[in-house]
């Protein structure tokens, strides 16, 4: 344990030093002039002095054509074929492989995996799939359905390289995944719309699908103040 902490410290020390030097070197530049110039970049409520978010995050549910659904499922399915051998290298090393695939094809069993996998890892991956589809404009029900199809395809045709399809994974990945995804969705939207930098970082970390270009729920907010009319307005821009 002590060795691990020392090893971690030696790795973190250069980063801490770099950040320290960087913040020290830039601190002198934060003058009142700089603050004045920066005023246009950070919007704050003039009365409460609370920071206003630059973007409004949310979800814009829309209809998807059948072709679009097939294309999206196809991309996700293709990615599982690409990533599964990377995270399960035994596919290439005898334990899994074509013979195992043939043996497991069409089988459905109760797996004996530990709760860490069945009640945490699989639902977590299901939640990220759900959030991926939500980011792509699917409403909650459609996102659940797409998650169900994606995880079933993975379970029945990809994971069987190493083990037979399991009842728990087929059910828990989309269902518990959606339950978890629903919670993450609400928590991340709250954090992203808080206007707080740390809130935004944690919000994006919880819900990484909001960082992808296909995310359809980000709205750019531009507050405008008209000196002549003494009027204020907020312009909102959406880009898809």
């Amino acid at each position, binding site marked *: 344990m002590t060795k691990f902490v020392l090893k971690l410290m030696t790795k973190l020390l250069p980063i801490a030093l770099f950040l320290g030097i960087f913040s020290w070197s830039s601190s002198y530049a934060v003058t009142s002039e700089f603050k004045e110039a920066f005023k246009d970049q950070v919007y704050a409520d003039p009365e409460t002095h609370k920071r206003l978010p630059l973007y409004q995050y949310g979800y814009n549910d829309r209809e998807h054509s059948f072709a679009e659904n097939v294309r999206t499922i196809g991309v996700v399915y293709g990615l599982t074929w690409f990533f599964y051998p990377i995270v399960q290298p035994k596919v290439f090393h005898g334990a899994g492989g074509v013979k195992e695939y043939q043996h497991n094809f069409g089988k459905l069993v*109760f797996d*004996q995996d530990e709760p860490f996998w069945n009640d945490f890892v699989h639902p977590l991956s299901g939640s990220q799939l759900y959030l991926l589809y939500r980011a792509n404009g699917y409403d909650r029900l459609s996102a659940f359905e797409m998650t169900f199809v994606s995880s079933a395809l993975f379970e029945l045709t990809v994971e069987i390289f190493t083990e037979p399809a399991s009842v728990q994974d087929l059910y828990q990945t989309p269902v518990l995944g959606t339950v978890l995804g629903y919670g993450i969705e609400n928590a991340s939207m709250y954090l992203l719309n808080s206007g707080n930098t740390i809130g935004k970082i944690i919000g994006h970390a919880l819900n990484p699908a909001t960082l992808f270009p296909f995310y359809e729920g980000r709205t750019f907010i531009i507050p405008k103040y008209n000196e002549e009319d003494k009027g204020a307005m907020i312009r909102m821009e959406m880009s898809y």
Partner: protein
Amino acid sequence: MKAYLFIFFLLIHVSALAAEKDTDQVRIHSQNVLAGNPLEDNFNLKTGLSLSRLFQTSALLPTQNKHESHSENTGFGFNTSVGYKWSSWEVLFSSDALFGKLNDLTFKVENQEVRGDGSFRVFTLSPLVRYYSPYSIWNRWNIYTSAGPTWSLHTFIIQNNLNNSDFDHKKRISFENRGGSLNIGVEEIVPYKETHPAFFEVGYSYMRSHRIFIVDASDFKDVKTIKKGASKDFSGHYFIFRLGITLF
């Protein structure tokens, strides 16, 4: 056991007394229908917490004077269900994941007995048919009942061997069971599904093993099945209390 049965029937009796028969069945559902976004004809996903009392029975080797080993345990966990609801009927898949402590139970594993304390976990999956009755309590809680077959996996982790057998605590005894369940509950009558109607439910489930597995969980990333075979030596039943909400 008798006490639990008594409480179960008492609950049903009290519910029946408190229930008001609505002469117009539509009235119960009309609040939702008229609101323009009825709960009827709709898909739903529900989730919540579960509390159960399990009664587990395991057959012993025929040479013993005692034929069965019993254990009573409390289990906690969570429940989920996905279903499609018509006006009074709903078809759904329901699941419970329960975890609890095990007190002194003996298992017949091939030709030896393993007696021990530890913990257990249960995963159940039930395709159910649910009927929403025309009765409500205080005109707010709609009474429903559901029933269906149950498939479950019951896993025991023996941490202390009480008969000094050489059963490693990294090994698991697991039973694949079949059975059935019957539930009765109430669901909040609300105008919109988005207001997350709550539900409370009591249920009874019976299960009997049809397969046994001995698995090695030394490496939690890769649990290996050491032995498996047919087994009718384990049976159990449990009363369960569920509470939760409709998520969407």
